[in-house]
C-alpha cells in the first residue's frame, strides 16, 4: 500500500516494484523470433522491463517461456466491493461435526434433474461420491443421507419422495434452458411443494450453469448455485440455513 494506505501493486523484494512472474507457451518453434514474440506479447499485456529467463522447446511447434516483468499498475483497495456471502465455507469434516452437534441426526438431502432435463452432470457432481474436481459429493458425508434420483424426474415424483423421506433439503438441477424449459419446471415444482405444505419445511436449492441467486429467490427457492459450485458450498450453506431456522423456532 502507498502512503495513503489504500493502493497496492505486485511486490517482489521492494515496495512498489511491481514484480510479476509469468509462464506461457507460444505455438511456434523456439529461436530468436520466438523470444521477441514473447517479449512483444508481454509488453502488450501492459508489463514493462520483461526478461525471458527460459525459452524451452516443447516440440517442433511449441515453445515454453518463463518471463519476469514489472507492472506499473496499482489498485485502489478502497474501491473494491466484495459481495456478501450468505454462508461461511466449511470443510467436510467440519460440516459433519456441525451436523452431529447441532442436529444430532443425519440430514436427508434429495436431488434430481426435473422435467425433461437429462443432464445429470451438475446434480451428480454435487450428490455422488465421486463429486467434482476432487471435491467429493454429498454421498461421501457420513452425516448426510444423499438420495440422487437422477435424470428426467417428474416434479410429482420428486415432491412425493421428498415428503416420504422427510427430506431436510431438495436439490434441483436444471441445465437445459432452451425455450425457458427450466423456468416452467422450477415453477411447477415450487407450486407442488407449496400445495403439499412442504416448501416451509425444507430448504429448496436450485443449481445449474445459468442459475443465479437472484433467479432462485425470484422463483421462490431459498438459494441458487451457479457454475463452479462444489458440494462443500452447498453443504455449508445448507447446515447453516437449517441451524438458523432451528434457532428462529426456539
Amino acid at each position: 500500500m502507498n502512503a495513503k494506505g489504500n493502493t497496492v501493486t505486485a511486490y517482489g523484494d521492494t515496495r512498489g516494484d511491481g514484480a510479476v512472474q509469468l509462464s506461457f507457451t507460444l505455438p511456434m518453434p523456439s529461436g530468436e523470433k520466438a523470444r521477441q514474440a514473447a517479449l512483444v506479447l508481454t509488453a502488450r499485456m501492459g508489463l514493462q522491463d520483461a526478461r525471458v529467463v527460459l525459452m524451452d522447446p516443447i516440440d517442433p511447434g511449441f515453445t515454453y517461456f518463463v518471463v519476469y516483468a514489472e507492472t506499473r499498475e496499482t489498485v485502489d483497495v478502497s474501491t473494491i466491493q466484495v459481495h456478501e456471502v450468505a454462508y461461511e465455507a466449511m470443510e467436510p469434516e467440519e460440516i459433519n461435526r456441525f451436523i452431529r452437534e447441532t442436529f444430532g441426526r443425519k440430514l436427508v438431502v434429495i436431488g434430481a434433474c426435473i422435467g425433461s432435463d437429462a443432464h445429470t452432470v451438475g446434480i451428480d457432481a454435487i450428490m455422488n461420491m465421486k463429486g467434482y474436481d476432487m471435491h467429493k459429493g454429498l454421498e461421501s458425508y457420513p452425516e448426510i443421507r444423499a438420495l440422487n434420483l437422477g435424470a428426467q424426474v417428474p416434479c410429482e415424483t420428486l415432491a412425493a419422495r421428498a415428503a416420504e423421506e422427510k427430506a431436510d433439503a431438495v436439490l434441483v438441477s436444471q441445465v437445459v434452458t432452451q425455450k425457458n424449459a427450466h423456468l416452467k419446471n422450477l415453477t411447477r415444482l415450487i407450486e407442488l411443494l407449496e400445495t403439499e405444505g412442504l416448501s416451509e419445511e425444507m430448504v429448496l436449492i436450485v443449481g445449474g450453469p445459468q442459475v443465479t441467486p437472484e433467479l432462485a429467490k425470484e422463483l421462490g427457492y431459498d438459494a441458487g448455485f451457479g457454475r463452479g459450485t462444489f458440494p462443500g458450498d452447498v453443504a455449508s450453506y445448507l447446515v447453516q440455513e437449517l441451524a438458523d431456522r432451528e434457532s428462529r423456532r426456539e
Partner: protein
Amino acid sequence: MAALNLDEAEVGRARRAAARIAVDTLSQIEGKTTVAVERAVLRLLGVEGMTPEGVPWANRIVDDLLARGLLDRGAAAWFVRTLVSRGDSPAETAKHMALEGLDDEALPEVEPGELRDRMCSLAREGLDRVDRSRGEREERLARLGRGPEPLRYLIVATGDIHEDVVQARAAARGGADIIAVIRHTAQSLLDYVPEDGGIQGVGGTIANRENFRVMREALDEVSEELGRYVFLTNYCSGLCMPEMAVLGAQERLDVMLNDSMYGVIFRDINMVRTFIDQHFSRALLARAGMMINTGEDNYLTTSDAFQKAHTVLASQFINEQFALLSGLEPGQIGLGHAFEISPKVEDSFLHELAQAQMVRQIFADCPVKYMPPTKYMTGNIFQGNVQNALFNAVSVLTNQTVHLLGMPTEAIHTPHVHDRHLSLENVDYVFRAMQHLGEEIAFRPGGRIETRARKVLADAVAMLEEVAGTGLMEAISQAMFADIARTRVGGKGLEGVVEKAEDYCNPVGDLLKEERTAS
C-alpha cells in the same frame, strides 16, 4: 532389486480367498445377460450404423427385443434368423432390423444346428477383425520396440479429438509411451455409444469408433517418426463397457481402463449389470491381447490412503482373480494403485514405498500401474511438482510398469501443453538420477517399511476372508470398499439385465471360451 520379506503363506491365503470371491460372484450372474453384452455381440456380428435420429442400430434392435420380451434368447439368434430368412448381408439385415423392426411371428425357425453354425461363422468374422488388430500391434511392436519401464502414461483431454491429436503428438515427442484420451464427462452413464463424431466433449472427448481411429492413426505416425510404439488407452467402463471393448479391440487400442467394481462404487451402476459386463469385456480384451488397468487408485480419493491401504490390496487380489477367470494372462492385468498418503503424515514417503514395493512383489507377473498424487494437490503448482518428484522416485525405485505422470496443475484444469512438458522433465530427471538405486538398497529386516507392508498384507487377508464369507455383493452393500454402500437392486442399468432362456446363445462368448480352453 531390493525385496521385502513378506509372508508367502499370507499371500497364498489372500489369493485363495479372492478366488473364492470371484468364483462365487460369477456363479451368481451365470444365468444372466445384459443389453450391453447383446449390443456388443451384434456389433461383432457386423451391426454398425445409426438411425436418422442418431440412435445406434445395436441399441434400436436390442431395445426392441427387450421391450417384446425376446432378448432372453440372445440378440444373435434373432439377427441370424432374420439374415437367413431375408438372404441379405449382415449390414443390410442390421439396417432392416433397426429401421423396420423385427417381425418375429413371420420369421421362420432355423434348424438349431444351422442357426448355431451361422452365428458362429459371423462371430468368427468379427473376432478375425480383433485378431488382425492384435497381429498388427504385435508386428509394429516387434519392429519399433517400446520405451523402457516405467512406461510414461500421459493424459490428453481437450474435448476435440483433432486438438487431442496435436497434444498427443507433442506428448509422445516429449517421451510419452502411453496416451490416454480422457472421456467426455458422464459418458459412462450413457447407455449407448454416441456415434456422431462432431460432438464437442466436456471435460474430455467423446469415445467412439471414429475418434479411436483418428487417434490411433496419429499415434501410428508419430510411432514411426520416433522409432518406438506409442500405446493408446481409453475407457472400458460404464454402461457400455462391453461395446467399448469391441471398439477398442477392433480399432487397436492397446490398454483399456477396466475395473470390476469402479462403476458400482463411483458411478452407482448396478452391481449385477457391472459384473456381467466386465466378465464379457475382459474375455474380449484377453483375446485382443490388450492390457487392462484397474482403478483401485480411486478408493484412495474417498478413503484415507494410510488407514485404508489394505482395501486397495484386497481389491487388487479380487481384480486379478476376475481377470484370470475371464481369460486374461497375468501380463495383461495392469493393477492400479496410487501415491495418495497425505504429505502431512510423518514418513509418508516410507509408507508409499512400502505399498509400491509390496504390490510389485505380490503381483510380480502383472504390469502394475502407479497413479500420481491427486487428493492433496492444491493450487500451489510448485509444491505439486515436488510431490510429483517424490512419486516419481518411488516408481523408479520399485520398478513400476506403467507410470501415470502427475501434473503440477492437477485439481486446477485439464493439462495445458506445458504442464505435460514440465511433468515429463520431472520424470526424466528423477528416473535418470535414480535409475539403479533400487538395485543398490535393501529394506532393513523388521524396519519401518517392512513392518508397514506386512501389516497392510495381514489386514488385506483378514478383509478378503471376511468378504469371502459374506459374498462380494453383500460386502459392497456394507461399504467395505471406498466407504460407500451400494445395493444389489440399486444403481443404474438394472433394467438392462435379463435372465437367459434355455436356448440362449452368445456365439461370441462361446467362441472366446472354447478357443481359450483349446489354446
